[in-house]
């Protein structure tokens, strides 16, 4: 009797676990199916065309792709040095009593929902950008900065974890040779934790590119490519968030699904590279 129950339990759990794989495959299939119409209509020009005009059923994704790339790039430039700084502070400088509260504060920053970053950005950051850099404040620049604050805690926490894996004996030997803290960090810890640190940056990049709400508030959803960072712009997730519920033709929907598929494939690829290539052994993320 109990051997039957045993089998049922084992197989149920296996089925559900396997279901997770099926679900992910299903997501790809469904997004692809719904993109077919747009893929057929536009082909490769979908990602090279700059005109996104629902009224004439013309959909070119280049402005959204451009916005995603530039805002993410901006966020990375701003966040990387600060994240490394926080990680160094948490793993090497902070007094033992400070480590936990500061570490938890940084992780709390990661727990704040992105819609709140967006709202805070809209009411408190947009005016600052407007007064400092001109324009209307709703811009690529604002989006990049808000995005950098959003990915900062995550990068800092994972970088710290990677740094903490450095064996004490290596650090102690370097100190014994008369190294300063910075010598130890740059010659021992960073080389030792390099893969993990790079992995955390790529992982953050993958998240930043799919981040929706924090940027939706402050980007503007304007399908235009402008070299001026203080101009409003759009990105793939911003376009989806703004237009999905309003699309009124099947080709419009299909184009939005193609954007979703594109976004999923890109972020899947980036996250996989981070995980399989850089974070393989340590399972930090």
């Amino acid at each position, binding site marked *: 009797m109990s051997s039957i129950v045993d089998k049922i339990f*084992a197989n149920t759990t296996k089925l559900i676990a396997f279901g997770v794989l099926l679900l992910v495959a299903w997501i790809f299939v469904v997004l692809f199916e719904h993109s077919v119409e747009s893929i057929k209509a536009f082909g490769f020009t979908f990602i090279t065309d700059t005109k996104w005009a629902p009224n004439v059923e013309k959909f070119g994704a280049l402005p959204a792709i451009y916005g995603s790339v530039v805002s993410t790039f901006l966020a990375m430039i701003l966040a990387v040095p600060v994240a490394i700084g926080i990680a160094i502070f948490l793993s090497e400088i902070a007094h033992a009593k400070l480590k936990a509260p500061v570490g938890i504060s940084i992780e709390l920053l990661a*727990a704040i929902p992105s819609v709140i970053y967006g709202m805070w950005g809209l009411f408190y950051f947009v005016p600052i950008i407007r007064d400092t850099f001109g324009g209307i404040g709703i811009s690529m620049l604002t989006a990049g900065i808000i995005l950098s*604050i959003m990915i900062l805690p995550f990068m800092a926490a994972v970088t710290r974890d990677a740094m903490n894996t450095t064996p004490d004996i290596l650090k102690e030997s370097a100190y014994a040779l008369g190294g300063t*803290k910075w010598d130890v960090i740059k010659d021992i810890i960073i080389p030792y934790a390099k893969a993990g640190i790079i992995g955390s940056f790529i992982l953050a990049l993958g998240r930043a590119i799919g981040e929706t709400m924090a940027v939706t508030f402050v980007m503007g959803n304007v399908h235009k490519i402008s070299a001026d960072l203080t101009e409003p712009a759009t990105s793939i*997730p911003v376009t989806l968030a703004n237009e999905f519920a309003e699309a009124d033709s099947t080709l419009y929907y299909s184009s939005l699904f193609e954007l979703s598929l594109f976004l999923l494939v890109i972020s899947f690829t980036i996250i996989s590279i981070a995980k399989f290539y850089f974070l393989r052994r340590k399972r930090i993320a």
Partner: protein
Amino acid sequence: MTHTQKRILINNIVMFLSTLSAVIGIGFLLWILSVLVINGLDALSMIIFTNEGAPPGNDNGGLKHALIGQLMLVSYAALFGVPLGVLAGTYLSEYGLKSKLSETIRDISDIMMSAPSIVIGAFVYAIVVSPMGHFSGWAGSIALTIIMIPIILRTTDDMLQLVPSTLREAAFALGAPKYKVIIQIVYRGAKAGILTGILLGVARVAGETAPLLFTSFNDNFLNMNMNQPMASLTVTMYNYATSPYEDWQKLGWAAAFILSMFILSLNIFGRLFLLKKRNKK
């Protein structure tokens, strides 16, 4: 300046910059929190809990519809997501172990945890909203469930692996079948850890907005029918904050305050607990 002095100078500069980075990070946290508390407390009143949404310009607007909607969306997501996630995690830790299937599921779950949630919204739109012909609370809950499963799966997996195998062996030696060992011994040993994982998973989906935009959509009035579009705190916050009406924006801040206090307390509780647990190991 001697070489040593130079090294010490550089060291001090780097130490200063690192400390400054930490101050910047915490500065942003304090800034956001103080904005939330100041605006939130200012907007908070009893009306918020007793009244539904109202047209702009009307002083009687509240958030009852969004609070109840949010509670329903997240509760149903947890109702589906928790058992599915825990059982799948159980398979990985107790049966699959280091098998190829288990490792693949772990990897895919990790990737899904970082994947853009708005894409899940598009997927649920295609499989639920589109065939049904309208937005609904169910669609929103399904989207949240899909986001929750990998989180709960991974924490359950990790927590079960922390249970010492000697406990399992002792139970097996007494002749207990495997499912009994898992349910009565392993789950009991990992209970607190799994519960923490569930709390963190719930906290994570409670803040999700993007996948709700085109699944549960929104409603400015109280609706308890999961078959209809349903309000959530997050989407309400988005709509109210981006509206030009000051009283709506005020309600948006109240929603932001309530939601973030809920999520942050779940996180503080969960993280402190995990920290204690990890230090013990």
